[in-house]
């Protein structure tokens, strides 16, 4: 992290799910025998001297008033004739009849819609980039069933054209995860969708890191020969890893409280210890309801929380348990049938999970799907309504904004149009739930980072230069 305030922020964020079962970080701070608590925290997090922290800097921004739009806040309101004022990289005001400050750029958005920036909890952009050649296959360290030591950020190729295409679809934040070959696949990373020279320069500042875990068919298929080759083997492998991590964590927490000689680091156990402390959020690839029940059991055994299940084709079968345990489910509208554990799809999955009071999320896991998340949320809403489920437009919008923000531990900073949040917003050419609607303007931290009408404000990656004809049609032909 680039600024001294960032770790303070990190320390001050206590997320309900993440904090319940771990010793409070304030306690560690108070009992470190006068040592700098921030340095202690960094040591525990594997962040030592900050070498791997975000170097993201927002693009230059001007105070901007977007006027006369239909403003869908993702926080319960749809304001017709609404205005949104962006100032100092934040959403300053949302309302009607706002006065433009003297220095403000005014955008007339009559007939258009404004939403929070779209957020995808499950992407492999950068780790499985375009073109999808063998040399770019970076998402699975498929050499061992538990690889908690690897970090997706180190595989992310920032020149993946998928980033800029996702931006044209209104995606402002995404979580890039390792693949699902392994039971424990490694750390995921949340990025701001502003392409830059390094992935580090895209990292969402002060965001929690995440851990990718995987249930079910993939690990047992990949490791068929050496094991695990069964689901019971999967669970044994995960439990063994956390048993070791608990010992490691205890050793370091003792050092954190009482000082003495610094224990030897172990990258894999460090990550899992951070899960046990509630600092690293678990993102769990899991299709079947019985697998998800087992994962909730594993989390209870070791005292951590699963932040979100991913794919969760059978989430609807255990939606009551998801609500009970405050676990989100990241789902598709209608993907199914590619393997056995994806056979029981119902297109009402999102609507049913939502109805049960659990956090439903539309995710993509796909470089094309990430370009049309607004459409797929709308389709999931339509399937729900057709089956008599009462899905509001605000709820459907939250599937791609507020709820994924929560899954990434960023619900206080992004995901709704509320004063004080990051100025990550999309101005749509019409109703974002229509198949015919384009993202016209995309702002990240108040800066205009995509403009459908202006080729200069449409980023292109190095890879595309000189090899790919520029497409500047923007749909207006």
């Amino acid at each position, binding site marked *: 992290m680039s600024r001294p305030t960032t770790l303070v922020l990190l320390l001050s964020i206590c997320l309900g799910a993440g904090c319940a079962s771990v010793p409070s970080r304030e306690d560690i701070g108070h009992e470190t025998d006068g040592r700098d608590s921030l340095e202690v925290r960094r040591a525990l997090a594997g962040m030592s001297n900050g070498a791997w922290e975000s170097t993201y800097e927002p693009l230059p921004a001007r105070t901007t008033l977007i006027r006369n739009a239909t403003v869908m806040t993702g926080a319960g309101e749809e304001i017709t004739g609404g205005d949104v004022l962006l100032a100092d990289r934040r959403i300053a005001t949302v309302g009607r009849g706002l006065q433009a400050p003297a220095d403000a750029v005014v955008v007339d958005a009559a007939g258009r819609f404004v939403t929070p920036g779209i957020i995808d909890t499950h992407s492999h952009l950068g780790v499985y980039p*375009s*073109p*999808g*050649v063998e040399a770019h296959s970076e998402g699975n360290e498929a050499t061992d069933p538990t690889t908690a030591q690897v970090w997706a950020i180190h595989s992310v190729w920032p020149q993946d*054209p*998928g980033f800029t*295409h996702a931006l044209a679809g209104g995606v402002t934040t995404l979580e890039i995860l390792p693949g699902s070959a392994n039971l424990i696949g490694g750390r995921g990373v949340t990025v701001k969708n502003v392409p830059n020279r390094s992935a580090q320069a895209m990292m969402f500042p002060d965001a929690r890191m995440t851990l990718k875990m995987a249930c079910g*068919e993939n690990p047992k*298929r990949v490791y068929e020969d050496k094991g695990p080759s069964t689901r019971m083997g999967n669970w044994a492998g995960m439990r063994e890893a956390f048993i070791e991590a608990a010992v490691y964590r205890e050793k370091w927490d003792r050092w954190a409280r009482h000082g003495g000689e610094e224990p030897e680091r172990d990258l894999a156990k460090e990550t899992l210890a951070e899960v046990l402390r509630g600092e690293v959020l678990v993102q769990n690839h899991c299709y079947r309801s019985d697998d998800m029940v087992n994962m909730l059991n594993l989390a209870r055994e070791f005292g951590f929380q699963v932040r979100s299940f991913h794919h969760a084709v059978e989430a*609807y*079968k255990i*939606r*009551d348990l998801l609500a009970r345990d405050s676990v989100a489910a990241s789902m598709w509208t*209608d*993907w*199914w*049938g*590619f*393997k*056995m554990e994806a*056979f*029981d*799809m*119902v*297109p*009402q999955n999102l609507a*049913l999970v939502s109805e*049960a009071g659990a956090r439903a999320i539309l995710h993509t896991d796909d*470089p*094309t799907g990430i*370009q*049309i998340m607004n*459409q*797929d949320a*709308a*389709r999931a*809403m*339509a*399937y729900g*309504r*057709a*089956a*008599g489920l009462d899905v509001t437009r605000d709820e459907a919008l939250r599937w791609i904004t507020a709820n994924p923000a929560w899954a990434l531990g960023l619900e206080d900073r992004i995901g709704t149009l509320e004063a004080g949040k990051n100025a990550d917003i999309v101005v749509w050419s019409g109703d974002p*739930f*229509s*198949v*015919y*609607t*384009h993202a016209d303007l995309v702002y990240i931290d108040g800066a205009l980072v995509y403009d459908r009408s202006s080729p200069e404000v449409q980023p292109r990656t190095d*890879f*595309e230069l000189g*090899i*790919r*004809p520029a*497409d500047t*049609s923007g*749909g*207006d*032909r």
Partner: protein
Amino acid sequence: MSRSAVAGRAGIAAIVILAVVPPAAAQEIAIVGGTVRPVSGPPLDGATVLVRDGRIVAIGTDVEAPESARVIDATGKVVTPGLFDPWSSIGLVEVDLVGSTRDERLADEEDPVTAAFDPVYGLNPGSTLIPWARTGGVTTVATGPRGGLIAGQAAVIDLVGGTAEEMLAEPRAAMIAALGEDAVASAGGARGGAALRLREVMEDARFWASRRAAFDAGDSRELSESRLDLAALQPVLSGRIPLLVQVHRASDILAVLALAREYGFRPVIVGGAEAWMVAGELAAANTPVILKPLTSLPSAFERLGARFDNAALLAEAGVPVAFSTFENHRAPAIAQEAGNAVRFGLDLEAALRAVTLGPAEIYGVADRYGSLEPGKVANLVVWPGDPFETTTLPEAVLVRGRLVPMRSRQTDLLERYRTLDEGRPPAYRHR
């Protein structure tokens, strides 16, 4: 059919049925009051479509519904032909990663040419993909083999019927080939090698046809493929059925057009991410393109020129286009694909054509399929609004003149899990 079945147990907005006739009687259905989009002509507001014994018998604003007909009130709704997916393996694949449920692949690296392969022998009328697709408005698909250089033959099927024979609308309607990166990899690794191999097969097919008696008498040079494969290629060489070639790169598309001129076959480009770059050549050769509109990424070196307005650019140049999801399990999303083609500049009617009459023309069944015209097979869909809109789902689907129940494995699962608090475990909750 019962009223509740028509309305759908899943709670899909009810279609008002004004008259019900016993199922045993002749099937006569009048869909009245809707905006009819026949594809073959301009939309008709407040028109009636009269269906009898599996066929459309009349269509227009002045058509009277006979007393005997079951009447479906489509006032305020849109009536279109059933959607026709031109690139599918429905009925041949159940679960992708379960090999025993896959019957669409015979060609492999050892034997990349299996032209005689007719996968319909393995067609499964009980596939769960079928009700899912048809309740999503897809009534007809071209189901075909995949893999290798020449995979085999595709058939046109309606998504109704208890046997493969009943489902068949047109057997052996096209030959499926590939010359893209994947296919080239299965034929030695160089593009020129794959083309060489294709030429050899075409040459041998010609040779075999001209010396058939000598071949049968054992008096022939060695041929690169089996007698059955060479025989299966004759309708391709004669131009009776098209050769569908999966290919993306502009230069590869031009190579296909050159091969087609050389051997006299009728090509159809499948995939065609860079087809817009050679739109003029495709139009001049009147060569159709089956594409996925939601293709914009340079996801392979053969697709560097991919862009969302591919369909619009091709149509503008006069190239016939048809759309598919290219995903067996997501056939209903073909409507979303068409909608996105419109988002990127294609005319709405042209997009509807690309999922109805366009595919029918490619497979040579446009005399029976693809539009709402008297005499055509009564495959049609009643939509509550714009069929391509994300929030529109079919309300009623007719296949061969019969209303299909709006049920699928998905609606069964939904019913079972609609509530979780019924005391007994889900296993006890079924019809």
